[in-house]
């Protein structure tokens, strides 16, 4: 099967529009619930036939519930590695479901149902990973959507639930509520003022954990951090979300203060930094992925500080997604290892800036080339 992302509503990335609260610092909010079907081995232990059975039951329940009305079904186990990486780069599937970890293969029966903003990963390490993605900082709205889908599906298929331990999951670190809420947050001010280590340490002490752009085990690039709750058991869903919300608001405030300090104490240095980043993106002829992420972070900071006026956050979000390795390779119909990718990326970045400048700051959907 071939993957056609154009079939996805909004290309599967409706959060790019930066319409959500705190959109200049918090890019997106994601919440997921881990669920398993009663009476079936968890996916890592189940055989191919059992995983197929689970997949078919979940798909039937999704269809019957109408929960994900305009959704598409993608059989991840039938995709090439490049296509799976593409879905992972769009944050539609996890590294585990995509089978991208070193030495790992895609699991037979792995599938995704998604309407762009909400979806279900099937046969990840749990039978179901229901997830909702929202623009900006919107945990309450995201959870309201997610809870509805959870109820709809849970009324049609029997989830594994234990009176004492709650929802039962493949890994006990997810048991109980099965809820992991995370925000993708941009913290260049705290990085530049060297306050970030202190903040991250504080987060850990408050029961939160941080990761890089791609979640578990990924490195921090472009000053982007994913903050999420560390524990899932012994607190109610509401408490977990409240706690995360309070701390994230605090981190946003720290970031604001750090930016104020930068503007006050080193205005020329900061202005030079963000304009250099912008200049490089506009004119470079070869850009690695990592360099692109770091330069985008500089421009995003410049926009946030009102130093750069003619670039929208929406353009920056699009660049963030569409300059990732699998996206560049696929658009150019090249292999991921192709040595020309940095030049192709630089070319794409220049054109996207030009197009968006011509069209004005507001566009819709994915860029035409994607």
């Amino acid at each position: 099967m071939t993957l056609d992302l154009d079939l996805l509503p909004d290309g599967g990335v409706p959060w790019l529009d930066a319409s959500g609260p705190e959109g200049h610092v918090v890019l997106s909010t994601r919440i997921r619930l881990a669920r398993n079907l009663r009476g079936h081995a968890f996916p890592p232990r189940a055989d191919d036939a059992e995983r197929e059975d689970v997949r078919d039951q979940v798909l039937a329940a999704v269809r019957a519930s109408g929960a994900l009305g305009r959704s598409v079904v993608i059989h991840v186990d039938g995709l090439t590695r490049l296509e799976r990486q593409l879905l992972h780069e769009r944050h539609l599937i996890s590294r585990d479901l995509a089978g991208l970890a070193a030495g790992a293969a895609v699991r037979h029966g792995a599938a995704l149902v998604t309407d762009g903003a909400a979806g279900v990963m099937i046969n990840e390490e749990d039978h179901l990973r229901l997830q909702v993605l929202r623009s900006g900082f919107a945990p309450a709205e995201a959870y309201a959507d997610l809870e509805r889908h959870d109820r709809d599906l849970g009324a049609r298929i029997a989830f594994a639930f234990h009176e004492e331990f709650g929802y039962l999951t493949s890994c006990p670190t997810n048991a109980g509520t099965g809820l992991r809420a995370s925000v993708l947050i941009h913290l260049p001010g705290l990085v530049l003022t060297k306050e970030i280590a202190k903040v991250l340490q504080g987060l850990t002490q408050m029961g939160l954990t941080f990761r890089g752009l791609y979640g578990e085990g990924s490195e921090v690039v472009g000053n982007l951090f994913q903050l999420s709750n560390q524990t899932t058991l012994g607190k109610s869903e509401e408490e977990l979300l409240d706690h995360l919300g309070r701390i994230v608001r605090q981190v946003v405030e720290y970031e604001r203060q750090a930016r104020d300090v930068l503007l006050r104490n080193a205005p020329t240095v900061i202005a030079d930094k963000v304009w250099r980043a912008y200049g490089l993106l506009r004119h470079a002829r070869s850009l690695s992925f990592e360099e692109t992420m770091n330069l985008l972070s500089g421009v995003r900071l410049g926009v946030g500080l009102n130093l750069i006026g003619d670039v929208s956050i929406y353009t920056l979000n699009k660049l963030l997604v569409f300059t990732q390795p699998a996206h560049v390779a696929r658009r150019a119909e090249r292999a991921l290892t192709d040595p020309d990718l940095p030049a192709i990326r630089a070319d794409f970045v220049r054109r996207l800036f030009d197009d968006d400048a011509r069209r004005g700051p507001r566009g819709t959907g994915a860029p035409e080339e994607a």
Partner: protein
Amino acid sequence: MQCQRCGERPAVIHLTTVVGNTHTEQHLCEDCAAAQGIQTEVSLDKFPVGSLLASISKGAAGQLPAAAEGGRCAACGATLQDFRDTGRLGCAACYEAFAGPLRTLLRRVHGASRHIGEPYAPPAGAPGAEAAPGPATTDELRTLRAHLQRAVDAENFELAARLRDEIRSRE
């Protein structure tokens, strides 16, 4: 490296203390570290859960239910060793088979072992629902009734009806 205190077990906790200009290093096994009241949970949390369980299972082995057939889950055949190796349980029934060590593990990971979030009752007649457990203990019934009350309070009547049915069937 051997533990400095007992000299028997391997040292797994390496503690550097700085007081003023003095700087001391201690290399201890887990038991001796615990005996000295050194909090090790933070460092242990960084390890995969499998090895975390391995580190506590010696003490928890006595809690393994005898019916677990030498630590094997009757439903999926997974053993505690499988869990130690992969960090993943085999199926939902593993939680019953290894309830003792898991309870200890959950407390260390989450600081609690009892779910107090949203209650759930499976739909009657849904696939897999026939695998429902038999008569409930008084404790379980009490929890179910509490969940029922909360479902009613939250005006989640669909769930309340399912919980009511579940309580009736298990009384």
